[in-house]
């Protein structure tokens, strides 16, 4: 009964209701404006809301998360520029629809299927999380270590650019996460005698730099101007269209939930897989794919919003972020004195149920807010970068300063910004670095905990891995994810494919 009351709290508590609504509304515009990312907005919010009540802060962040993931579709349709990475696949058919005078319909379709996908994601979050949490309580130290490493490897596998570099920066991130005094022995790690470094590197400062200021620098180095489609046309899809597209929406939403739930994999991959599924399984698309097929908008948009609910599952059950935004939400939990992971559901289940309720509510608000304000949006995206970039810089600076009221944190943020910029221009993924910083303490604690449990004996630990089912499964997944990036795997796969082809033709 308490759980139901907590689940309904975002509806019954006016404060939470308003915060979710504001979050969704603001998130749509943040996600829609190229250059403003959901991760950056969440990081900013985190620094500004850390004195708030935890539930208020979480309600606002969930609202921004849902609105932001959806908002990217608007810029994708009207500008052919994905407002957020999760909207990349939406440009493939959304923009061609706009060129045909159906920008409104593309946005309307994107809104409706995003809401359906988001609700499916919220449903799975609500019902799967308590079950997974029960299993996760039995996880040993080594299981957490393996799971965290698996998350880091998956990010490396699925992010763009070199896998080797992704692993290098992920490990660099773990080392960043270990800077400061060791919690067990009090040993100094990478402090170089600095008092400032003894406190460790603040996760929020690093995230603000890597996502916020780095984005400013990337935008600054390109002098692109945006052109907006002027004709919007009709907005709402007909009921007949929605019913026809519903089976596809359900399937791609499921893909979104599953992909989103993989540690370290976000809406971007979910959307691309959703698009790929729509393309492969739709026998008679409304138009050829790439020329404004409705199915080409439905696939990615339902998948990326469903991935939001999916991404929250590993975060809440295992303390492992599903994507960059959930990595930041983990930061929100930590600064509010909470410990996301299997014990959360036992010690403070109310936070989970309020998050789940907020997610449902946010998707309902999305249906309303998603269909209004397209005219305002067109004006906002036309605002010169000359106004937007200095303003974003001020916001990231204030965000970094407010964490500890310390000017030195701003310099750290700027430093991480330059690092993030360099990584991006050299095609080195930033995601693994951030996940490494976030997961560093968990990786360290679980690895050393496992060694101590095995009496510092490596063969005993290896035996445990081989004899415990969860550990064994995770190890196999980890090995497969690493091997799948080697030339040996690619060559073998190509040889098998060639042999099969030869066999068929023969």
């Amino acid at each position, binding site marked *: 009964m308490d759980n139901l009351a907590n689940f309904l709290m975002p509806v019954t508590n006016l404060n939470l209701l308003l915060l979710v609504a504001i979050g969704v509304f603001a998130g749509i515009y943040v996600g829609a404006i190229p250059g403003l990312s959901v991760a950056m907005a969440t990081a900013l919010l985190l620094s*500004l809301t850390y*004195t708030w009540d935890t539930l208020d802060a979480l309600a606002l962040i969930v609202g921004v998360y849902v609105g932001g993931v959806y908002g990217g579709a608007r810029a994708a349709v009207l500008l052919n520029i994905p407002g957020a990475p999760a909207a990349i696949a939406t440009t493939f058919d959304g923009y061609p629809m706009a060129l045909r005078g159906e920008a409104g319909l593309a946005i309307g379709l994107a809104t409706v299927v995003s809401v359906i996908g988001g609700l499916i994601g919220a449903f799975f979050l609500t019902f799967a999380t308590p079950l997974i949490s029960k299993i996760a309580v039995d996880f040993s130290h080594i299981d957490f270590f393996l799971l965290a490493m698996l998350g880091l490897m998956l990010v490396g596998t699925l992010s763009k650019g*070199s896998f*080797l*570099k992704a*692993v*290098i920066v992920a*490990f*660099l991130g*773990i*080392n960043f996460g*270990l800077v400061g005094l*060791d919690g*067990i*022995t*009090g*040993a*100094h*790690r*990478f402090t*170089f005698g600095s008092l400032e470094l003894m406190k460790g590197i603040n996760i929020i400062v690093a995230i603000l730099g890597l996502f916020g200021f780095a984005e400013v*620098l990337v935008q*600054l*180095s*390109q*002098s692109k101007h945006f052109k907006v489609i002027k004709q919007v046309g009709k907005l709402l899809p007909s009921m007949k269209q929605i019913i026809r597209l519903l089976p596809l929406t359900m399937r791609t939403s499921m893909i979104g939930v599953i992909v989103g739930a993989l540690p370290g994999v976000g809406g971007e991959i979910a959307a691309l897989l959703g698009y790929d599924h729509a393309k492969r399984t739709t026998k008679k698309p409304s138009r050829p794919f790439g020329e404004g097929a409705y199915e080409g908008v439905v696939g990615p948009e339902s998948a990326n919003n469903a991935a939001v609910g999916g991404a929250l599952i590993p975060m809440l059950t295992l303390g492992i972020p599903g994507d960059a935004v959930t990595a930041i939400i983990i930061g929100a939990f930590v600064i509010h004195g909470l410990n996301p992971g299997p014990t959360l559901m036992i010690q403070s289940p109310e936070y989970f149920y309020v998050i789940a309720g907020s997610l449902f509510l946010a998707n309902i608000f999305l249906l309303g807010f998603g269909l209004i304000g397209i005219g305002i949006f067109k004006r906002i995206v036309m605002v*010169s*970068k*000359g*106004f937007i*970039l*200095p*303003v974003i*810089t*001020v916001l990231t*600076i*204030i965000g970094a*300063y*407010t964490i500890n*009221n310390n*000017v030195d944190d*701003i*310099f750290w943020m*700027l430093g991480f910004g330059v690092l993030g910029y*360099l990584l991006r*221009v*050299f*095609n*080195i993924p930033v995601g693994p670095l951030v996940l490494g910083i976030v997961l560093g303490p968990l*990786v*360290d604690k679980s*690895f*050393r905990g496992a*060694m*101590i449990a095995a009496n*510092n004996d*490596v063969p005993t630990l290896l035996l445990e891995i081989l004899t415990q089912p969860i550990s064994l499964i995770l190890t196999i997944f980890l090995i497969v994810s690493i091997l799948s990036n080697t030339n040996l795997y690619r060559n073998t796969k190509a040889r098998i494919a060639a042999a099969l082809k030869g066999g068929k033709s023969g």
Partner: protein
Amino acid sequence: MARNQNLIVNLMLVVVSAFILYSAFQIELKGSAFISSPKILPVLLSATMLCLSLVNLYIERNKDVRITIDSMLFFFGFLVIVLLYVGLMKFINFHVLTFLYLFGSFLYFRAGSIFRCLLVAAIFSVSVYLIFEKAFRIIFPA
């Protein structure tokens, strides 16, 4: 910019990895066994980083990537403005400084007419004051 920038970045990865490995070895054991000590993970990870960065250096030895910054002077000019803004924060009232920074940056970017830049800078600075100082009660450095 130098020609093979990718080579420089890859060499930097090797140097950074080697430096972290060296620093990891400086971590004290504090009475614990090496295998479960505070230095085990940094040593293992940085050693792996060093090996992988050397492999990467070899694999990408002929790959050339160049940073394309449309105007280098403009790019670094803005960085200098930001550093000045942060550097002066302890000495000049934050809101006055934010107004000056925004107005200067808008002009630097040629975002609009002088009047428009002045107006947007003023509106945003007042908003920052009301939201952050009055509503969130943040105490700024000066």
